[in-house]
């Protein structure tokens, strides 16, 4: 069902690029007022500034946890030369259970999409944002996505 053609990405992209491009397809491009637009029930939730969600107790606690686990010996530029994917894998190997506050924030968008989809109909097909960004596919996230 979902065969994903390789997206043209200018380096470092990978499958996360797909989500990034679909956001443009949905949100930008020419609009002609003489044409109608198909119903995008819930999809435009993307436009809502979800910063509000960031300023939540949940986020604060996750940041506090993350600080607690932070290896202060390592210094800020531990892996400057490595591609980000490699860097992240190394991190998640060392700290498998850490669920980042930052990727958590990205999740809120994903969740909003998912919710929108559920409200918009009960189709079983996966819509774009219900797909986790592969880059951050931490085990803890994957579990949630499969619900």
């Amino acid at each position, binding site marked *: 069902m979902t065969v994903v053609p390789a997206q043209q990405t200018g380096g470092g992209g990978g499958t996360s690029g797909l989500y990034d*491009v679909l956001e443009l397809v949905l949100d930008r491009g020419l609009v002609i007022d003489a044409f109608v637009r198909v119903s995008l029930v819930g999809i435009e939730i993307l436009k809502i500034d979800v910063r509000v969600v960031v300023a939540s107790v949940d986020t604060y*606690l996750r940041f506090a946890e993350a600080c607690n686990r932070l290896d202060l010996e390592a210094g800020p530029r531990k892996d400057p030369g490595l591609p980000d994917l490699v*860097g992240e894998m190394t991190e998640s190997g060392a700290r498998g259970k850490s669920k980042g506050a930052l990727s958590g924030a990205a999740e809120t968008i994903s969740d909003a999409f998912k919710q929108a989809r559920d409200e918009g109909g009960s189709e079983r097909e996966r819509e774009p944002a219900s797909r986790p960004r592969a880059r951050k596919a931490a085990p803890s996230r994957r579990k949630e996505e499969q619900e």
Partner: protein
Amino acid sequence: MSTYVYGITAATHPSLPEGTGGVGDPPREVRVLKEGALAAVVSDAPEGLRPKRRELLAHQNVLSGIGEEGCVLPMRFGSVAPDDKAVAGVLAERAEHYAERLGALEGRVEYNIKATHVEEAVLHHVMAENPEIRALAESNRQAGGGSYESKIQLGELVAAAVKGKEAEDATVLERALEKEADAVSVGPESTGWLANVSFLVKRESAERFLTAVEQARGRLPHLDVRVNGPLPPYSFVEPGPAEPAGTAAGGTDAGAG
């Protein structure tokens, strides 16, 4: 039968994608409607079209095919005209405007940049730059994690510092890349990323632009910078930000034309 519109291009475009698959299941056949010097790339509009992943991809794939060989004004996903005649009518009515935009965007493509912080790295920065946070984190750690209140207090300070760092890094990144671009379009703000910026880049400058991205990655190792492109110029179809179609008097896009 209503008509789904993918984009508008010049009638002289060298490889218009007739007969390929577009949106819908089964994919509707892509057709070309010519009107004067312009052409609209369309297909029949499937009943009950929804913004599914597959449909968005189909839309993007049709457009990127056209974009490889020449300039196209990409429609936003989901634009449906009552029929082919209505599409031709719009092309005729606004021919001058679309011709001007195609001219301005000729030989240019969009690169979209999205950046997020690498969490651990940015926390290191925040700790290093902020003695108060460092002290609080240390005392929490020694207290085996600290009380609920002190965790909240620490988290709130960190969240604010990270947010400040996001704004700072977004500016640095944009400055580093804008010099290789003809125009810049800042996308909607969201917590999914700290920067979501599109750059209009001449095809022949693409290499230089990507080099600038690599250099920025090197200078900002605590950022995860994602590049997507070359893309049809989704973010530059209208000269100004958020102007309704057809009303633009032109002239605000930097350096185009």
